[in-house]
């Protein structure tokens, strides 16, 4: 095994790239869960975002348009979930699973004509001055705009939840929907908005996979990234800052295992390629063993105004 072939600067830079899709999806799901809704369909929305983003970007040769399309597609796909769980009061777990399957089917249907194509290049944005720094410049400040956007989004969500009145209302709806309702807040509307935001974020995350990370469309390409995003929200104890930590940790694991595979490490390939999932399980166990769950109190509970 030749570990010297792994360049630490490029490693960190590629960790940021590989963490971004999970980070985007996870921060969206965080907002959804903070409003008291458990949407298990992240995987479905992500892969739909991936295919729609890719299709739009290829047709218009504009990655930017692709991302917009992906966000819209993710939000649109989450709409039936929102209506079903909020107005028809269906079981959130089952509906989320349905959303996942619809998304997987839909994506491979849309994606058929786009297989084997190449995504239009997405320019890197070198931040002036900072990107000229030795080592750190290449590592942290010469990425494409979505990487910065994802970090900014985490900060924005954190500030929104912590400092704004709307964020307080969102949290109130997630913690005690009956009290929030009694105070006159529209529980359903707030939750639907949160679900749509989560869908849009998952769509963006998916599009980042198909437009930047890979960059092409293959069937089932998210390969559980949406589920890892869900796990990261639990791992993060529903805190935006920790979501970022979690996402970069998992991005790191998946990049490292690829690098180890390439470097010909003396570890079975099956173990390496399963390692992101195994580590997710391990982390979940550690988090749940500590017992500090901090889950929103109304998470997964249906709301009906008559009670």
């Amino acid at each position, binding site marked *: 095994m030749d570990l010297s072939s792994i360049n630490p600067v490029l490693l960190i830079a590629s960790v940021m790239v590989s963490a971004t899709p999970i980070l985007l999806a996870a921060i969206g799901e965080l907002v959804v869960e903070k409003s008291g809704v458990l949407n298990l369909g992240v995987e479905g929305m992500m892969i739909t975002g991936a295919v729609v983003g890719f299709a739009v970007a290829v047709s218009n040769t504009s990655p930017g348009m692709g991302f917009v399309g992906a966000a819209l597609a993710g939000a649109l796909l989450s709409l039936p979930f929102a209506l079903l769980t909020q107005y028809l009061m269906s*079981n959130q777990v*089952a509906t989320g699973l349905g959303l996942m*399957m619809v998304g*997987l*089917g839909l994506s491979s*249907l849309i994606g058929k004509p786009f297989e084997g194509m190449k995504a239009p290049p997405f320019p890197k944005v070198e931040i002036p001055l900072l990107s000229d720094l030795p080592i750190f410049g290449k590592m942290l400040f010469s990425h494409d705009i979505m990487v910065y956007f994802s970090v900014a989004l985490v900060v924005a969500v954190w500030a929104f939840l912590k400092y704004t009145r709307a964020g307080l209302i969102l949290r109130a709806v997630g913690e005690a929907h009956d009290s929030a309702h009694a105070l006159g807040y529209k529980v359903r509307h707030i939750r639907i908005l949160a679900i749509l935001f989560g869908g849009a974020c998952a769509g963006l995350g998916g599009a980042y996979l198909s437009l930047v990370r890979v960059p092409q469309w293959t069937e089932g390409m998210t390969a559980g990234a949406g589920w890892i995003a869900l796990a990261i929200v*639990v791992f993060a104890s529903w805190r935006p800052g920790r979501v970022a930590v979690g996402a970069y940790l998992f991005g790191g694991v998946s990049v490292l295992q690829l690098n180890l595979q390439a470097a010909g490490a003396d570890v079975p390939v099956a173990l390496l390629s399963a390692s992101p*999932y195994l580590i997710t399980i391990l982390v979940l166990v550690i988090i749940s063993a500590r017992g500090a769950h901090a889950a929103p109190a109304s998470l997964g509970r249906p709301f009906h105004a*008559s009670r």
Partner: protein
Amino acid sequence: MVLSPVIAVFLTMIVGGMMFAILGKPPLEAIKVIFWDPLFNDQFASYSRPQLLVKAGPLILIAIGLSIGFKAGIWNIGAEGQYIMGAICGAGAGLALYPSESFLIFPAMALAGGLGGWAWAMVPAVLKTRFGTNEILVSLMLTYVAQSILISVSSGLLRNPEGMGFPGSRNFKQWDAAFNAELIANTGLHWGVVAALIAVIGAYMLMSRHIMGFNIRLTGEAPRAARFAGVKPARVVFFCLGIAGLLAGAAGLFEVSGPAGQLTGSFNAGYGFTAIIVAFLGRLHPVGILLAGLLMALTYIGGELAQLMLNLPGAAIQLFQGMMLFFLLAADVFTNFRLRFGKKGVA
């Protein structure tokens, strides 16, 4: 209760028809090819009718196991992984004894398959009862782990030594003692289907006649009441996940030693996920699951036929099946709530 699956299937046909129209296929024709031709078309029915049981067998077997857990509010969605591990363990146990022709080989493989699935399901069960880890995420993550183990063993440990280097195990079709053959020619009835029927009856007895079934339902509907009544939550978790893993593992073995024939990196056709739809479409009731499994098998075969005759993309069927679950959940509002027109209450 019975009506909403029927409404859901009907709505899926309508919306599915619209989808086919958008894809530029004749909608009525497509619906007919999917739901009617596999059973009654003169040209294809003789081939596709046996396929109905071949496909329904694993779906029903897995869905029965899942439904028991779902009743208790235990969301095992990693049946696909348990199915794969059952196939690997069962096939591995058989191949270890190659080329013995003993009649005990196949029962031993079935047992090993069931135990493999059971062991894989015990991981989320132990983690849930011991550490309170969410079983949804763990069981799903384990599916991806199982998938990479499958790819590894089918091109490594269990690869056919006479396969000229191609990935994939020995073909069980060429080894009578281990082959899960059709029991009655041209019916598609193999041991997996028999097991599925036994599971349907067993699950019915369990859920309606046995104290464990009552405890499971109680845990799902009123967890607090169940604890006061002395039901140990951990036992319910172990039981539900164990049964689901056992049945999924057995289904995997029956598939790999019969219709699939050999262990390859992609022998699993996503039955573990489709079985979730089957379980819900069957209202988590054994008899309902039997019917839903047959229906879902029909959409698989019909989908293949539509691929052949109308050039319909295979993914359309996957979408079709997903939609069915969605419409079912939507139609459920009519069973859970009563519609009242014209009267506006105070919310």
